[in-house]
């Protein structure tokens, strides 16, 4: 087990290196200059040069890369050019917000998918199935930011039930924090549940065809038991993989939702990082999300045997 985890982590190193390399050169290919952005339209050329030197931007790119990579290995991701904060600190605080939203949303979406998908598969072809599939298809067709804006309009502005913007860290007031997160979580839950429902339904249909389900019924088990004990665990495995992929994707990819709801999350940090050419922040963020991606996938692979004992991690 431990050997397996070690091996997986070792195998991830080339991937992460390529990510690091791509990020590093990509952000430098973007026209624009962080020093310029910081100093604004009236910046003095001498001050600009001084800032360049201070930020190490006057050195050849490969030297910058080597320096950065060296620091990364010692755990130092550098400091943000625009705010002067250590990138690692920024990442950890931002990742908390994104993490809560993503984990809760994906968790809820998964639960919804399990129930709706299994039931739709069970009553395949019925009105219920049609409704579930119609709903899932509709969800897949709605841009998530549009959905977010609509929810914001309805619950925040018209009904005034929920706060519209802002964020309170969990550490300060968990209850208050939750209130700010309800709408983003609802948006993400809805928009991610579509694909999960479809996946769950299709694998549940596959499982429902199998002999052991008939066998379970032939034993006289009630349908509820058949679904919960015989269909769900086997049908869930493929969905679990998809959940893993979704988690990995969302950790870096809810910039749009974070923008709509003004959450200080990783996605927005990355987008503003790109827009203000804050190289250390962009590099740190992308490396971080890549690491998360690798870890989430590893976690999914480790969880997989729980649902499908035929698969062993060794």
């Amino acid at each position, binding site marked *: 087990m431990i050997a397996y985890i070690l091996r997986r982590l070792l195998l991830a190193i080339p991937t992460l290196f390529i990510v690091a390399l791509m990020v590093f050169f990509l952000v430098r290919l973007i026209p624009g200059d962080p020093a310029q952005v910081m100093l*604004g339209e009236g910046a003095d050329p001498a001050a600009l040069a001084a800032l360049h030197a201070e930020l190490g931007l006057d050195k050849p790119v490969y030297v910058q890369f080597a320096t950065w990579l060296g620091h990364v290995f010692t755990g130092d991701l550098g400091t943000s050019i625009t705010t002067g904060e250590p990138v690692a600190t920024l990442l950890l605080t931002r990742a908390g917000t994104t993490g809560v939203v993503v984990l809760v949303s994906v968790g809820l979406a998964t*639960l919804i998918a399990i129930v709706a998908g299994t039931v739709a598969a069970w009553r395949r072809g019925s009105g219920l199935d049609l409704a579930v599939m119609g709903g899932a298809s509709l969800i897949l067709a709605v841009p998530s930011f549009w959905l977010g804006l609509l929810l914001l309009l309805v619950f925040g502005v018209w009904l005034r039930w929920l706060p519209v913007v802002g964020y309170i860290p969990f550490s300060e007031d968990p209850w208050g924090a939750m209130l700010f997160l309800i709408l983003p979580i609802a948006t993400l839950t809805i928009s991610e549940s579509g694909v999960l429902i479809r996946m769950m339904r299709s694998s549940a249909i596959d499982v429902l065809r199998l002999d052991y389900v008939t066998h379970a019924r032939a034993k006289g088990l009630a349908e509820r038991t058949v679904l919960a*004990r015989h269909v769900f665990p086997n049908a869930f495995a493929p969905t679990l993989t998809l959940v893993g992929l979704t988690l990995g994707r969302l950790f870096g990819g809810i910039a749009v939702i974070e923008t709509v709801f003004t959450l200080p999350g990783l996605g927005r940090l990355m987008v503003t990082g790109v827009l203000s050419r804050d190289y250390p922040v962009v590099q740190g963020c992308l490396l971080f999300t890549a690491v998360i991606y690798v870890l989430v996938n590893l976690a999914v692979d480790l969880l997989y045997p729980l649902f499908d004992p035929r698969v062993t991690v060794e």
Partner: protein
Amino acid sequence: MPMRKAIAGLIAVAAVVGVGAALLHPKPTTPAGSVLRSRLNADIASSDPGMKRDANTDAVLLHVTEGLVAVREDGSVGPMLANSWTVSPDGRTYRFTLRQGIRFHNGAPLTSADVKWSLDRYLAPGSRWRCKPDLSAGGIAAVTAVDTPDPATVEIVLDRPAPLFLATLARVDCGSTAITHRDSVGPDGQWRYPIGTGPFRWGEWRHNQYIDLIRYAGYRPLPGGPNGNGGGKRALVDRLRFTVIPDGSAASAALLRGSLDVLDALAPNELGTITGAPGIKLDSARSSDFYGILIQSGAPVLRDVRMRRALSLSLDVAALTRVVTHGTGVPDSSPIPAVDSFYGPAERPLVKRDLAAARALVAASGYRGEPIELLTSHSPPEFYDAAILVQAMARDAGINIRVVDLDWASHLARYSSGDYQAMMFGFSARLDPSQMFGVLIGDRATDPRKVWNSPAAIDLLHQSVVTGDRAARQQVFDALDARFRAEVPAIALYNTRRVTALRAPVTGYRSWSAQTQRLWNVGLRNVR
């Protein structure tokens, strides 16, 4: 089994969420005492005035720190920490008398040594103070000495007379040349936080979330009411919170929802949402800024002055301004802001749309429809809208414009390198026309940002800063304005109107042309 657990979990979470949404009224974390909540569209760059800054930084720090002098509503310079000053006959020595009884936020009394310490820090080698170039050899005058004959007196010696010296000290983007206590800097030489003399002291800075400022009980206001950044300032609430909300729509929603008290610099396209909303009132002031099209007069096609004039004549400036600023802006064909006291009869006429003349000029120049790139971005959103309108209007005169939409960083980079044909651009408020012309006029060889490098203009600009005489300066500015219209190094379009939306309980808020939100002397009725 797992299914049952999963369903149970789902129900539990749904219940918690549902009950939370239905029963609990959102309660923002309000610290004890009255809080005035305002919005910033981006986090501040630092807490070090004038050093690492942008407009938001300046605005926040103006509540915390003060300089010797401050700019007044009408653009003139008035006293702040200095009670009075005298200028030597040769115009090179300024002698300031400090106000008595002023104490820093940490309780230390303000002395001339503090002023010297602050100025020395600004002018030290390696300092990135915004106005260091202006007060160096290449600027308006170099500071050669800062003397402190006694604790209440400061003498600043310049290498040459400089009529704009006080105005420079008062400049907002220079951080008002804030005087801070030396403990603002840690033993390691690193800036910690500002210990100033302003009506609010530094509270907490949550990066990208908010900045809290706390009422300074020991503040000694100048007599009289507030005036510009100076005058009698008072803290009327216990705490100011500047919340960082980058997104304009989100900010409007927050105001409507009651999570904000003051929403400054309302994007024009948000106006419709806010106007007429119950419990919301608006306050506005015209800004002394510049929005227009910068043109590289060396670039293909546009190097022909006839094409630049044709472009200018093809635009309906008034209509464009109305649509782009949603009726808030002021069309202005002159670089001098319409609110400026130098904005006179010479500057007032707008360039009228004249398609026939524009077409004639286009034909005369031999233009054959080569695309002209007009760079723009979404910062602010009006740039983008304006670019589209310019494109559509120029099309009527047979000018083929290709709009290139960039992100702000790229846009700024292209501005700085001069690598463009034409671009939408804006300059924030400049309280003196010399400053506004100064950002346009200069030698392109040494500073690629300058778009207007005609020797005559450079000479006129120089004349405007060496004289302090109002009438003489008006003449110079009139001449510059006339040349500007003839040579078309840029097309001036409009000045914005800074609109601030306030919740009804907010009292005493006043917008002004310098584009910063001032929350001193602003109170809340029925303090929560």
